[in-house]
């Protein structure tokens, strides 16, 4: 009964959303403000309605209503209440409902604002957000009903929304299957909501962009209205990605945080276009340029948000056949296609009104560098997109073209392939390196007229000789270098990156020479004390360069303010950041990115690992660490339905005792699934990460351990915290400058009238 009530409210919400869309369209068509207002109120109603639906589902989850299929699949009696609540987004049907609920919250927030000055946008924002929400709600109502109950028919037990003829309600199972143990980690409880928040909040700027295209009000008003939304969306998406990484590090037992898995990339792709958009809109705000490009970026971000959800929800990643057989996969595909075609058609329709107002004056101006940044982000997107869809394409071609035309086997890959980390790492690393280089230039460039002359004239002979410098030794030691890098592709890529860095440093030598010297010293220090790996040294140089340039700019600006305003340095720094949050928030984000880069470089380049079986009292050595297996214990926790096997190992660094670690194997009875929880000893220098290998027997006679030393990895997590601070500074709401301007304008008008 309660389940039917929940489904009833869900259907009502779906109808209200549809009404809102139609009322908005007709209201606009008939020029009826009251109808548009009705649409707005209907949209506002969706959130309380969906909250009620969600409340019903949570009630069912918490109270073990196993007659409901979704509840049976994601909860069990042994789960604590908070996990039963978070099981809401632990399965397909629930997570779609969660998407809709967040979407309705955001749409309600948007429609709640004052629309006095942007009345023409309102109906179309409702339409775009409403259509998106109706699509997701429709998925729940027609295909993935979280309230469907189990019934016994002649054909067996199955879940139905309504009781079928000749059936009886199936007696509720005594216990549910329980949430996938991997999803019980705190990181996984927060990670999906963060990611979904990021996804749905990017719908808001998209809705405004489309409203601008439909109404023809294509100035940068829509961008100003959605600036904060975009930043918050970016914050959620970024943090969702970081939390996902931390979860993978703590729970998956792979010794890493990112495996270039298609599911991870599905969330990473909208982040890439979103980041490009964040940079690119600033050019439109400051210079009135690239309006078409910004539209395209936000359209692409929206398409990738839906595409990401499609990838993870349709089963297409496991096989194209699973996608074709799934109820929602093809519909998702059609929805993405329709929205993309409509958006691009509108963009083409308004093409002429989106022309730039000014031109680029210099290839070193900030807008030019931002464009270059966009090119790099888009290239990384192409790398990721190609990597994700290539397995699908090969599977598809194997079943179609290769079967129909056997001759195609000579030209096409006619079997499904997997695209793993080596491809992404090799293809993306030069792009990331140049992106970092651009970050170094960001604080030094300025809008409009920054010219080469400002940074020193280009002397072609000097430039040529600088560029030739690394070519000569490379030509001499080609064979050794090729050996060191493994193959000629990597050697050429490394050489090209060095050339780009040198050319860049030469162009910016006027403003960057101190930082270049500083970064060179850091690199020399790293060479003397840490590593001789040339790729690592190049990367350390770039990271140091960005950090020094950015910190120097922060120091200079704060110092100038401290002297001018006669303030304490820290007060001056605080006020400086407060006055121009977006710029200095951006600087902090760049600094945090570099800290994260240190962590990524550490684990990617310097990670070492070993695996071995040892008896009690025996040791495993890795890098400077020694681990000694002491004892093991195994016990059942029946209320939780878990068996724990916990080893105790002593750890030493260079022979000095550091303490003990407790790597664990957890075995969940309900789902019959093992989990490896690592023992970690974390310092800023590195992480000692010890796993009790869960596919080997473990006893006092012998246990198998996999040991990783992950250098510098904790800088990744520290950087992500600073990153959060940076985005919050940049996205924190300011007093509405328009209101201040309007008020000031009104005062001017009053004065003029008095003068007259």
């Amino acid at each position, binding site marked *: 009964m309660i389940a039917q009530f929940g489904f009833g409210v869900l259907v009502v919400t779906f109808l209200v959303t549809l009404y809102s869309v139609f009322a908005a369209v007709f209201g606009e068509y008939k020029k009826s403000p009251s109808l548009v207002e009705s649409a707005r109120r209907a949209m506002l109603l969706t959130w309380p309605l969906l909250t009620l639906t969600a409340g019903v589902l949570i009630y069912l989850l918490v109270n073990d209503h196993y007659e409901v299929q979704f509840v049976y699949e994601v909860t069990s009696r042994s789960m604590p209440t908070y996990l039963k609540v978070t099981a809401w987004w632990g399965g397909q049907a629930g997570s779609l409902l969660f998407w809709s609920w967040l979407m309705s919250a955001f749409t309600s927030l948007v429609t709640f604002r004052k629309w006095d000055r942007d009345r023409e946008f309102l109906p179309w924002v409702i339409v775009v957000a409403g259509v998106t929400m109706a699509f997701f709600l429709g998925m729940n109502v027609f295909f993935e009903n979280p309230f469907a109950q189990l019934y016994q028919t002649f054909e067996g037990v199955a879940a139905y929304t309504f009781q079928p003829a000749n059936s009886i309600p199936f007696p509720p199972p005594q216990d549910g299957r329980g949430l996938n143990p991997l999803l019980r980690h705190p990181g996984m409880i927060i990670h999906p909501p963060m990611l979904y928040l990021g996804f749905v909040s990017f719908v808001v700027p998209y809705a405004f962009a489309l409203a601008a295209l439909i109404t023809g009000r294509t100035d940068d008003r829509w961008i100003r209205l959605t600036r904060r939304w975009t930043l918050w969306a970016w914050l959620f998406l970024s943090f969702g990605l970081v939390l996902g990484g931390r979860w993978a590090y703590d729970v998956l037992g792979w010794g890493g945080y990112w495996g270039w898995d298609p599911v991870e990339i599905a969330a990473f792709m909208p982040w890439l276009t979103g980041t490009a958009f964040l940079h690119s809109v600033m050019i439109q705000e400051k210079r009135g340029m690239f309006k078409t490009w910004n539209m395209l970026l936000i359209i692409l971000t929206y398409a990738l948000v839906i595409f990401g959800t499609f990838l993870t929800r349709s089963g297409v990643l496991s096989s194209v056949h699973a996608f074709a057989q799934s109820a929602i996969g093809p519909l998702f595909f059609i929805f993405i296609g329709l929205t993309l075609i409509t958006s691009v058609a509108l963009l083409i329709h308004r093409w002429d009104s989106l022309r730039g107002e000014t031109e680029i004056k210099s290839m070193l101006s900030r807008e030019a560098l931002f464009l270059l940044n966009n*090119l790099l982000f888009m290239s990384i997107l192409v790398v990721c997109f*190609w990597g994700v869809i290539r397995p699908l394409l090969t599977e598809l071609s194997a079943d179609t073209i290769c079967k129909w035309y056997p001759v195609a086997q000579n030209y096409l890959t006619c079997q499904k392939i997997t695209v*793993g980390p080596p491809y992404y790492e090799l293809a993306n690393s030069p792009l990331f390196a140049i992106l970092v280089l651009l970050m170094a230039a960001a604080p030094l460039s300025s809008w409009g007229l920054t010219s080469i*002359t400002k940074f020193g004239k280009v002397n072609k002979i000097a430039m040529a000789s600088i560029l030739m410098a690394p070519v000569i030794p490379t030509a001499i030691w080609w064979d050794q270098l090729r050996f060191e890098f493994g193959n000629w592709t990597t050697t050429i890529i490394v050489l090209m990156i060095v050339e780009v860095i040198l050319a860049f440093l030469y162009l910016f030598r006027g403003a960057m020479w101190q930082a270049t010297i500083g970064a060179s010293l850091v690199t020399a220090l790293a060479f003397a004390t840490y590593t001789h790996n040339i790729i690592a040294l190049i990367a350390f140089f770039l990271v140091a360069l960005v950090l020094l340039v950015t910190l120097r700019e922060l120091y200079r600006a704060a110092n100038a303010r401290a002297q001018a305003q006669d303030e304490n340095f820290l007060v001056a720094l605080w006020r400086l950041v407060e006055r121009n949050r977006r710029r200095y928030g951006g600087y902090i984000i760049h600094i945090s990115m570099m800290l994260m880069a240190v962590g990524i470089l550490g684990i990617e380049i310097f990670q070492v690992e070993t*695996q071995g079986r040892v008896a009690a009292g025996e040791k495993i050595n890795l890098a400077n660490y020694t681990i000694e297996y002491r004892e093991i214990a195994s016990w059942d926790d029946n209320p939780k339905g878990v068996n724990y096997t916990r080893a105790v190992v002593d750890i030493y660094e260079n022979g000095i005792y550091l303490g003990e670690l407790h790597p664990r194997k957890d075995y969940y009875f309900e789902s019959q699934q093992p989990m490896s929880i690592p023992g970690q000893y974390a310092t800023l220098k590195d992480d000692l990460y010890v796993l009790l290998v869960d596919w080997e027997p473990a006893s006092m006679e012998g246990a198998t351990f996999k040991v990783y030393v992950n250098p510098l990895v904790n800088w990744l997590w520290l950087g992500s915290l600073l990153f959060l601070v940076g985005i919050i500074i940049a996205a924190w709401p300011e007093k509405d400058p328009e209101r201040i301007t309007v008020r000031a304008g009104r005062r001017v008008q009053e004065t003029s009238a008095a003068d007259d």
Partner: protein
Amino acid sequence: MSRNILRNTQYAILLLLIAFGFVTAVLAQGPTPSDDDVNKIAKQLFCPVCESTPLDVCPTEACRQWRELIREMLADGKSEAEIKQYFVEHFGARVLNEPPNRFASYAVPAVAFLLGAIMLFRGFQMWMKPSKADIAPVGGSGVPESEAKPILQDDYIARLEEEVRKQK
């Protein structure tokens, strides 16, 4: 008599051959490959039956057996390439973590990047051609104003531009 000698010689040769084969096999096997030797290869392979799980960390029984198979093949003196080839032949190219056709992997992003770069460069050329070069910078600059040297020298044009902008 001579027949006996011949037969004995044949037996001796046969025994020698068997002994030689046995010694070669023992020598080829060498020490049992370590977990690290196995993982080095398993890391480059994906579990043939699970989704996106590298073979070195896959916890299923099937994967454990495949890792043991790698160990046996290593012990038999098979090279890394031969072991990978064995897996490809039995389970398809999807077990490799890097697809066999490297050109197809990298050509698409490389062409996309080059096209983008060419478009951007042409865009720069187009935008910079009507180089009126002369409107004062708009908005904030990352560099303190005192440092920014205006290109514009003509005060009259500067004032004119300023007036026009005000009128807008």
